[in-house]
């Protein structure tokens, strides 16, 4: 193994320009993936932000008794996908209306009766904000006799669900296409680096080196090149993120775990591409 590391290091020493260029190409290929991840992550956040607003509101008759309401709250909380059920009394509804609409605040003194109904607001767990879950809960809540009306913006929830599905499919297709392009570029970059050292592989085979000993330095070199490319891609993506953040609009930086996966992918791709490229030469001689 020590020989493998020495040889890998000597590979970098002997051809720093070629190794640097390979790492640069790998870096650019991974940057495309990094930028895609940045866009996909922020789109996901935006959709999640909208999804959080998915809720079912049940307006209650004025005749609804507190015991009935409490019992309904408990049973609704037990439904699958329900995160929380909150009760808003008529008084609370009026207060909220006053806060949100100044006009109401102005005329509220003149009101003889409070026109706002009491309500139950049902929120959903992430992953359960689907048309099916929302419809099931809406149907369950409308079964209570003291419920006058149920609203959840059916069309809006359906559209949101469609948008999310389209987003996931588009991400998969585009992400897959970018990953294929990145793999091809990384493969080519590493093949060029291995091609430059074909004489060494030839001599190793000629004098009777074992295949494993020939392959190992290239595996290490490929992995390091891939990792260097990954680091470069992270820096370039970070630079782009900073530029967009300061000059265009605010957005979130991708999670550390994604970067970790990106670097690992660079390392593994580099090692694999190198191994494949060397295998070609091992078949010869």
């Amino acid at each position: 193994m020590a020989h493998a590391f020495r040889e890998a290091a000597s590979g970098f020493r002997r051809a720093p320009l070629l190794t640097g260029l390979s790492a640069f190409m790998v870096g650019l290929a991974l940057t495309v993936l990094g930028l895609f991840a940045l866009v996909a992550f922020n789109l996901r956040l935006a959709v999640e932000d909208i999804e959080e607003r998915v809720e079912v509101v049940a307006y209650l008759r004025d005749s609804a008794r507190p015991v009935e309401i409490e019992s309904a709250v408990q049973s609704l909380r037990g439904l699958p996908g329900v995160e929380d059920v909150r009760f808003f009394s008529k008084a609370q509804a009026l207060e909220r209306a006053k806060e949100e609409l100044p006009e109401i605040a102005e005329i509220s003194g003149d009101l003889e009766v409070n026109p706002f109904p009491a309500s139950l607001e049902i929120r959903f767990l992430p992953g359960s904000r689907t048309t099916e879950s929302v419809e099931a809960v809406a149907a369950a809540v409308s079964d209570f006799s003291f419920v006058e009306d149920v609203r959840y913006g059916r069309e809006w929830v359906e559209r949101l669900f469609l948008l999310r599905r389209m987003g996931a499919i588009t991400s998969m297709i585009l992400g897959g296409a970018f990953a294929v392009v990145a793999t091809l570029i990384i493969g080519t970059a590493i093949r060029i680096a291995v091609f430059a050292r074909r004489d060494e592989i030839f001599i190793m085979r000629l004098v009777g080196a074992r295949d494993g000993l020939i392959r190992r330095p290239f595996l290490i070199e490929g992995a390091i090149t891939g990792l260097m490319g990954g680091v470069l891609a992270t820096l370039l993506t970070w630079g782009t993120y900073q530029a967009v953040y300061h000059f265009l609009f605010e957005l979130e930086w991708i999670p550390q775990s994604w970067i970790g996966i990106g670097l690992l992918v660079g390392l593994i791709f580099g090692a694999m591409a190198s191994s494949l490229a060397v295998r070609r030469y091992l078949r010869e001689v």
Partner: protein
Amino acid sequence: MIKLLNVSKVYPRTGSALEGVHLEVPKGQFVFLTGHSGSGKSTTLRLIHMAERPSSGEVLVDGFSSRRTPKREIWKVRRRVGFVFQDFRLLPGRTAMENVAFALEVTDTPRAEIRPRAQRLLSKMGLSAKAGSPVHQLSGGEQQRVTIARALASEPLILLADEPTGNLDDRATRGILDLFWQINALGMVVIMATHDLELIRSYPGARMLELDQGRLVFDSHTSGGGS
């Protein structure tokens, strides 16, 4: 030591390169392999080196059979067979010492032994003073000596040389041939492919094999005559 049993080699694109070659080379023999270009000299050497497998027949090298030796064990054959090329195939940009040391490094030589052994090999080749010189600064004869030192690094039993003097002047050629004889005197089989009949005639003690269009047409040992 080496046996070619009714060996034929056919390439998909260029056709037949060797046809029914039957040959035995015992330990310690010096063999000149001659013939025109394309007669099958290089193919024969590559078959002995197991860089190629015969299309039919069998090649045996120190007990290793071309039929039964798996690809992952070819390295064992390579360590028994040194190979010298006409165009040297040295690693450019490296010194003579580094070129020989490289062969030792990749063939499991303990690290502490690499430099002393490379130094000894180069000194046997008369290159002690040039050990630190980059190979591209050496003359053709000197470069070929580095190649021979590299070929001897794994202490092989057989030395194959494919037109090793093709790029050298007369003086350098004689020097290389003398080296081969010294190596052969230590018990190593030397098989040298050349089309230089003048050179072959000046070493009458050697066995001469002649190939023509892939067939073995002359063997000085079976024909009862010299070269």
